């Protein structure tokens, strides 16, 4: 009796117990239908491996540039570790508060930069150009991954200029003592 095709497929991947794989090999010698199926699997595998893939020759250099960019940012701006001048702290607090309230002040940010930092003081700071909303969504998504801490903070650079929007609720939630927690 012929083995199920799913078993032949597993046998083809060397994923069948030794005891059974010998029997299957024997069967294949004498069964035309099953051996044709296995040949078909081999053809498919060859086809998959002959299809070309993109060639990224200078990609290692690009990776290193991206690594250096990230480093520069995290060295130059360790936001929470600094004594921050009051306006910047207020701006950051407003931003955090507005994020928490679901409003969006990010688009008014003229300096065009966003920083996403990992909460644990290991300073994992990532530079995002503010006009690349896709990039930012990707970062936010990956921050949900288990490789990241669950607490991510989106911060502005210290020297940002914000237009004052005058929402009393926002102002109340700003602690002018420079503490970071929203």
């Amino acid at each position: 009796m012929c083995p199920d095709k799913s078993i032949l497929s597993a046998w083809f991947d060397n994923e069948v117990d030794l005891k059974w794989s010998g029997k299957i090999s024997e069967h294949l010698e004498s069964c035309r239908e099953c051996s044709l199926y296995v040949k078909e699997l081999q053809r498919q595998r060859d086809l998959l491996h002959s299809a070309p893939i993109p060639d990224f020759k200078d990609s290692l250099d690009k990776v290193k540039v991206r690594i250096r960019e990230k480093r520069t940012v995290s060295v130059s701006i360790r936001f929470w570790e600094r004594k921050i001048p009051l306006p910047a702290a207020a701006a950051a607090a407003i931003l955090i508060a507005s994020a928490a309230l679901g409003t969006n002040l990010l688009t008014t940010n003229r300096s065009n930069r966003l920083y996403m930092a990992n909460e644990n003081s290991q300073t994992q700071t990532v530079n995002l150009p503010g006009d690349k909303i896709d990039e930012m969504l990707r970062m936010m998504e990956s921050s949900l991954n288990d490789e990241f801490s669950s607490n991510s903070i989106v911060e502005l650079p210290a020297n940002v200029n914000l237009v004052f929007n005058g929402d009393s609720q926002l102002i109340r939630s700003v602690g002018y003592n420079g503490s970071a927690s929203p």
Partner: protein
Amino acid sequence: MSNEIDMEKGFDDIYHQFFPILVKIVYRITGSVSVSEDLCQEAFIRYYERRDKLPSGDQARYWLIRVVKNLAYNHEKRKGRERLAYEKFYHEPKRPETNEGEKTILEDESKKAVQEALLKIPYKLRMVLILKEYGELDYKDIAASLKISEGNVKVRVFRARKLLSEYLEKGEVYVP
């Protein structure tokens, strides 16, 4: 200091060893040249940042494949959400993304058909077949990385292969 240099070299080695594997995996899953370059670079940046704590050799391969698989999955999810939003707004189905504007690497029609057929296979099945064929992982590793049973891997590989041959036949692709 020499330790630092050794680490750089170690990183370069890992990169040269595994970047081509990651590219194959992501390109076959997403079908996009620019997305695969971006996601593979991202995976290596993450590896670089944690390289003093991470394994080398084959364990590094598992780690990188796991990261890139998650990145590809997130990409897929976002694409799905964007399509839904589009359809809700325009009340018409969004045409599938093509690689127009990207340098085409698939000159040969039959090779192009392989990629197109792969993209037709449902994501869950496609991922398993691609991890098997291009990630050079066995069922046990695939099961662990996708948090499914080995039996499930076996079934998905089988079903993906079946669909792939069906799509290739329908497209009247020449299979040597």
